């Protein structure tokens, strides 16, 4: 019987290929949904087996490489993220996918992500990483060449950096699988502690760490390498972006964890640590901090709804990176918790964006507005998502952000703590920008007949919103799973409460008291006089009603003052830097080709003569 790991990994790809071959409207969607549901079912079924045995393993030999796959707690958590958000995204795609081309590559990227999470050796990790990158690239290629080219080049640059690092490790360790690599690095760490000469010199370690950091930094969209994310996330089928940003960015985060698993001890001893946090982790934390701020501020200044959420998902990943960077057991668990919550609310947001674009066909803020009445269901989902992302207590966003805050500040890292606070406020800010521009304010006349979300999208959004609320009120469920990863009770407390000793958070009490507060306020409200419903256009305008042509709205350029205060910083943009490098290389190629292959036989003969002279002089 094929091992269930293989089914989990290759079921989506198989479904994708079948959907691509049988290009019939009805069958295609059914096959795809089954393709996404099967791995999810197997993962849930694997939960029991994981309770009994530590992990499920499987290995095959392919062209001289031994591929190994493993499912243990950490990879189970990440695989579940991929499963749930992937399934929701596939459900969303049922209504927004145009042709079978998108089905094939969306499901192929899902296979790639599963493969990355379940891989147990460097080569299969690299191969599935490439498949994931290629599939998601093809999704973007269909819509826009420039964005897809930028995305492909940066992520392939990352992939090749990883390949060189794997090569260097393979040259020294002689094997690929995680266990032996980890063992060799651990022995190396012990040797460096005893002061004897080590397998890896210091700058080799720096090189490997730098290469891995670029590879995973590109995928997670950390600060200097984030330029591809806004274009790539916005230039593709929006419900696919739910999976693209919700799940695929987690591969980058998982990669960072792999660095910790493999090289953690060695780097710790090599570079020492500040307080309990390893010094090398500090780099990741700082990059994460800068990513939060840059991502958030740019998100607030965007005019396109997809770009806003692309930048916002970059800044949210910054949080996870800060959590991982701090490096203590609590902070890594907080990071994974935030990875889960980010996948949930970001997946939900992009499904909402998909519904809006699907129904209104508009993507710019300036021609949207006043959709709250027309799309109540989607607005309710958006309200839940906004509360969760902004980190308002009863929802999951707050629980994970709170854990990261506690973990970071407890490690005496003032600057990072300040960055985190600033990040949470920015999150607040661009959400209101989105809410005001899309849901409230004057509605342009042509949007008057917009219908609400189609059924499959509504179901998908429902699943994610429900999970957001459930994990918010009962954070203990997730904390329990996370503790299994580290084997010991890092986050104590019951199913409703997270207790860290120096800080306690109880989801249940907060929800009860919030409801009590709202009841009191409602009582006061209904004691007052009866209310007369007034249309949105009839506002306090000293008499003259606000008509369409006189539509006073600040949907466009909502944060002009912020843009002015940040004017100095906005001039520097890494996007333009990479653009210039690209065009410089192309011009170099142009001149090079023009001069070397100039078509004159004599010149070619001179090249031959030159080689002869070199051979003679050099004496080989």
């Amino acid at each position: 019987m094929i091992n269930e790991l293989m089914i989990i990994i290759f079921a989506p790809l198989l479904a994708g290929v079948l959907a691509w071959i049988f290009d019939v409207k009805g069958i295609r969607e059914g096959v795809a949904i089954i393709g996404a549901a099967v791995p999810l079912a197997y993962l849930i079924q694997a939960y029991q087996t994981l309770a009994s045995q530590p992990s499920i393993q499987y290995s095959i030999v392919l062209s001289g490489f031994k591929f190994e796959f493993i499912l243990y707690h950490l990879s189970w958590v990440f695989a579940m993220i991929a499963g749930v958000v992937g399934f929701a995204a596939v459900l969303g795609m049922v209504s927004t996918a145009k042709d079978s081309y998108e089905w094939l590559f969306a499901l192929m990227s899902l296979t790639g992500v599963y493969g990355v999470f379940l891989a147990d050796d460097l080569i299969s990790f690299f191969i599935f990483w490439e498949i994931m990158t290629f599939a998601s690239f093809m999704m973007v290629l269909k819509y826009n060449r420039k964005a897809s080219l930028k995305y492909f080049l940066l992520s392939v640059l990352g992939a090749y950096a990883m390949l060189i690092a794997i090569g260097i490790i393979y040259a020294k360790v002689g094997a690929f699988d995680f266990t032996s690599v980890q063992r060799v690095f651990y022995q190396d760490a012990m040797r460096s502690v005893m002061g004897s000469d080590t397998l890896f010199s210091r700058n080799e370690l720096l090189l490997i760490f730098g290469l891995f950091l670029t590879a995973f930094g590109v995928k997670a969209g950390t600060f200097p390498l984030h330029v591809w994310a806004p274009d790539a996330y916005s230039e593709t089928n929006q419900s696919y972006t739910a999976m693209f940003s919700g799940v695929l960015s987690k591969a980058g985060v998982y990669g960072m964890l792999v660095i910790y698993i493999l090289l953690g001890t060695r780097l710790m001893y090599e570079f020492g640590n500040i307080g309990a946090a390893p010094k090398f982790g500090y780099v990741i934390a700082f990059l994460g901090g800068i990513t939060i701020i840059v991502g958030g501020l740019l998100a607030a200044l965007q005019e396109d709804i997809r770009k806003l959420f692309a930048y916002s998902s970059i800044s949210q990943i910054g949080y996870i990176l800060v959590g991982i960077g701090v490096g203590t057991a609590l902070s890594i668990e907080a990071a994974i918790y935030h990875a889960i919550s980010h996948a949930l609310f970001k997946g939900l947001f992009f499904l909402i964006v998909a519904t809006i674009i699907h129904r209104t066909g508009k993507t710019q803020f300036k021609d949207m507005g006043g959709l709250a009445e027309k799309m109540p269901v989607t607005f309710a989902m958006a309200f839940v998502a906004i509360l969760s992302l902004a980190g308002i207590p009863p929802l999951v966003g707050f629980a994970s952000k709170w854990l990261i805050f506690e973990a970071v500040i407890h490690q005496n890292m003032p600057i990072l703590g300040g960055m985190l606070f600033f990040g949470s406020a920015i999150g607040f800010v661009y959400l209101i920008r989105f809410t005001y521009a899309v849901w409230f304010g004057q509605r342009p006349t042509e949007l008057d007949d917009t219908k609400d979300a189609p059924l499959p999208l509504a179901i998908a959004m429902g699943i994610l919103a429900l999970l957001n609320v459930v994990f918010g009120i009962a954070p203990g469920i997730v904390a329990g799973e996370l503790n299994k990863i580290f084997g010991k009770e890092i986050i104590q407390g019951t199913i409703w409460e997270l207790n860290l000793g120096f800080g306690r958070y109880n989801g249940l009490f907060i929800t009860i008291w919030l409801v009590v507060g709202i009841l009191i306020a409602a009582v006061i409200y209904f004691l007052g006089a009866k209310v007369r419903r007034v249309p949105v256009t009839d506002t306090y305008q000293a008499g003259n009603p606000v008509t369409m042509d006189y539509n006073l709205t600040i949907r466009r350029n909502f944060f002009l003052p912020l843009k002015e205060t940040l004017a100095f910083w906005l001039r520097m943009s890494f996007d333009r830097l990479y653009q210039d490098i690209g065009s410089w290389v192309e011009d170099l190629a142009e001149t090079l080709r023009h001069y070397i292959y100039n078509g004159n036989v004599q010149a070619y003969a001179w090249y031959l003569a030159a080689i002869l002279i070199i051979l003679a002089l050099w004496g080989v």
Partner: protein
Amino acid sequence: MSIGVYYFGAVSLILIGLYAVLVKKNLLKILVGLSIMETGVNLLLISIGYIAGRSAPILSEGVGPNNAVDPIPQALVLTAIVIGVATTALALTVAINLYETYKTLNIEELRRLRG
């Protein structure tokens, strides 16, 4: 009259041929340079097989196996000459065709395919 003279002659022939190919602008002169180079190479081959004081390796009653020059390079040169002829003949047909189409044999102008 040591063997060096032949080697020197052969190598200088090759260099002259190379010079012609590298400097001359007219295509035909380049082809002539090429064939000079080939003759130089053939001369080098022959001179390698030469043993002083022996006659050509044609077995006749006066000439035995041990008073003839080493025959193998001679055989090699035969094929090399044939190949040289074939290449030059083909090159000339191509040159004629070039002249018919472009009305020039100057290397500088024959540069349509480039970049």
